[in-house]
């Protein structure tokens, strides 16, 4: 997960502060050194680091910090504020043209992920805005780049405009735009070839495409693993094309992603999206404030909640809530829930968004095999309908049958039933707003409180849904 290393280091640096009542100048100096190292190790450009540390130090050394009652909190806040300020205050939406089509152009180095991002972004626009995009294949240089875009277009049922590799990219874009006008596409996404920012000839080509297409959005696609070079790349493309935003790709790796900070600092242009996986739906809106929180180890609870709210089908949620109330939470619901959770993303990804788990050293080697969920489902599917609804029926003989039927050892069946019982208990508790026993999971201090707040929010949402449901039921009867 991005920035994990950064949060680890900052937390280590700040944990010393947290224990003390007062902060000395020496403490500030030591902390600043740790922050500097953490940022450098995370590949944040050294020039950016220098400014950042200077700003934080100046603010931290102010009297209000040293005299305040909770100096540790103040420094955390200053670092957090500064990070947020550098990365931008809020999520910046895509520019939209007043008249269709909105033209979006992707630029970047070779292998940054432009073509994949074109696919992901069109899926995002279709899912969220019911868009009818047209993709223009303007990468005539890399072998099979056009094929790649066509395959993606087929997967997503999105039309792709191409003229093969024999035509000038500028001409391809011209004719592509004409076709979009004809077909009344509301979005046009232009995939361009990867190039170095110092390649004069190819940069001129981009400038020509820009002059022709007047794109509403020029998105610089940057590999989040980029090192110190990130500033040069961003500067080069920005000076030449005046980019409007940035997409940070491959953020699901173990990179610390310091490039995000560097790029933002040197261009002042917002990061709009982050790519977090190989699948076409693995594109997320970039929330700078949440990212700053994540750096400080607060976890990215807000993103998790957002995902949960989007994925958790309301109707199913209501059914679960009803069953819990009647205390008949059964295996069918358990499977349902598991499906919902796996819709949110891979398990290790979700776990890491929970405060306290994000930089728990024990989590480093935590990998959830996607097959585990499949195995658990297989177990449930090997049960009779009666067994699924009434778990108390499951005596050893039945368990043996289920193990044989699902092809897993009986230990796994027992484990799964135990897990189910825990989930059942927890669902009941959560429903009543009782979080005792879950305290340990959330951790202490600010993290814990944040986590609980998030959990509360989820439960409140669930309750609200239920009330709504009861109301409609009443109305119908």
């Amino acid at each position, binding site marked *: 997960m991005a920035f994990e290393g950064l949060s680890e280091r900052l937390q280590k640096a700040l944990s010393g502060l947290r224990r003390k009542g007062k902060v000395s100048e020496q403490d500030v100096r030591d902390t600043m050194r740790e922050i500097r190292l953490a940022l450098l190790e995370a590949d944040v450009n050294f020039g950016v680091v220098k400014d950042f540390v200077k700003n934080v130090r100046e603010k931290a050394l102010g009297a209000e910090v040293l005299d305040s009652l909770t100096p540790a909190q103040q420094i955390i806040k200053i670092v957090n504020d500064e990070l947020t300020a550098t990365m931008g205050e809020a999520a910046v939406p895509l520019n939209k043209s007043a008249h269709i089509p909105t033209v979006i152009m992707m630029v970047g180095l070779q292998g940054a992920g432009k073509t994949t991002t074109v696919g992901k972004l069109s899926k995002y626009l279709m899912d969220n805005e019911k868009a009818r995009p047209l993709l223009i294949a303007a990468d005539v240089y890399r072998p099979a780049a056009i094929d790649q*875009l066509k395959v993606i277009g087929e997967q997503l049922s999105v039309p792709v405009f191409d003229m093969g590799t024999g035509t000038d990219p500028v001409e391809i874009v011209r004719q592509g735009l004409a076709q979009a006008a004809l077909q009344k596409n509301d979005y046009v996404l232009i995939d361009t070839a990867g190039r170095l920012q110092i390649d004069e000839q190819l940069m001129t080509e981009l400038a020509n495409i820009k002059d022709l297409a007047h794109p509403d959005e020029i998105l610089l696609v940057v590999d989040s693993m980029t090192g110190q070079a990130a500033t040069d790349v961003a500067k080069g493309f920005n000076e030449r094309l005046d980019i409007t935003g940035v997409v940070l790709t491959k953020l699901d*790796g*173990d990179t610390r992603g310091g490039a995000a900070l560097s790029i933002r600092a040197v261009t002042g242009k917002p990061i709009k999206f982050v790519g977090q996986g190989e699948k076409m739906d693995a594109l997320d809106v970039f929330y700078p404030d949440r990212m700053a929180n994540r750096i400080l180890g607060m976890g990215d609870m807000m993103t998790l909640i957002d995902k949960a709210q989007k994925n958790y089908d309301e109707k199913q949620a209501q059914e679960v809530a009803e069953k819990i109330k009647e205390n008949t939470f059964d295996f069918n619901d358990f499977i349902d829930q598991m499906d919902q959770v796996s819709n949110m993303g891979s398990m290790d990804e979700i776990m890491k968004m929970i405060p306290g788990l994000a930089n728990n050293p024990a989590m480093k080697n935590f990998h959830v095999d996607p097959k585990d969920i499949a195995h658990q489902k297989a177990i449930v599917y090997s049960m009779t309908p009666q067994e699924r609804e009434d778990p108390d029926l499951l005596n050893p003989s039945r368990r043996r049958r289920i193990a044989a039927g699902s092809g897993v050892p009986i230990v796994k069946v027992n484990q799964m039933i135990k897990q189910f019982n825990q989930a059942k208990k927890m669902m009941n508790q959560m429903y009543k707003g009782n979080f005792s026993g879950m305290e340990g999971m959330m951790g202490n201090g600010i993290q814990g409180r944040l986590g609980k707040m998030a959990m509360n929010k989820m439960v409140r949402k669930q309750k609200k849904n239920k009330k709504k449901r009861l109301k409609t039921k009443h109305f119908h009867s």
Partner: protein
Amino acid sequence: MGLFDSLKKAFGGGQQETAEEEKYDAGLEKSRSSFGEKLNALFANFRSVDEDFFDDLEEMLIGADVGFETAEQLTDELRDEVKLKNAKSKDEVSQVIVQKLVDIYGEAGEGEDNSLHYAEAGPTVFLFVGVNGAGKTTTIGKLAHQLQQDGKKVLLAAGDTFRAGAIQQLQEWGKRDEVPVVATEPGGDPAAVVFDAVKRAKDDNFDVLLVDTAGRLQNKVNLMKELDKIKRVIVRELPDAPQEVLLVLDATTGQNALSQAKEFNQTTKISGIVLTKLDGSGKGGIVLAIRNSLHVPVKLVGLGEKMDDLQVFDPNKFVYGLFKGLIKEEN
């Protein structure tokens, strides 16, 4: 005799530069100007040898993607060296530092084997691994061309069945290079493709088999397991193969390069690194970092977009290119 002295001897005495060296030179122009210029700028601002000077030096090294640890280690060693040699004037200090940098670079690479290994009999297999977008397929395309030119019978295996258009991309290279490609349907089992390719390489007496694989981030456990399986298939069919497992690394990558090398090494035991897009990185430092902390030799470098821009890595030429202006000044 340190590397510095041998470099001086080899390149200093008005020797004619070969065409190859010029190529290196051109490809590294950006790298060198950043590294050399930064070093020169540092010396230009030099007033006295104090902590600020070494801080600046450290920052300059970090800025060249040398990596934080390597930068700190280098700076410490340089600090001692300057003290030891009692260098005070600007020229003395700059000479000591450049010499030390070159020597450290040479030491870390001692006993390093930068050559590609081929099987004594039967087909040679090179397995290419790396993260998404590093340049695996392009590297294979260029290398196949060069091997073909050398009169070798080359076969390609399209082991990236996952990414959209990846198979077509390799097939396109196959067409350009006039080299056959073993491939399957998109979404097929890569290990099966590799099995077929190895079998064909054996049966039809190919000299070299280049195996492409899908890009994968090193923290994806299941994808790394798949790579392990691909390698097992190769070893089962040809016990001495693969002769090389090459990690393809984007030269603009920062500290994550170390994690990549570590994880891929754990899964497939990499034998060398292909450093791609070196012409645009503007940072020669990554080579230093790789040597210093990974001890995996760089075997090929990508210096441009053209077919023959993929070159065998010659560490001496590289370091010569990096420090060229600085060494000549002192002669």
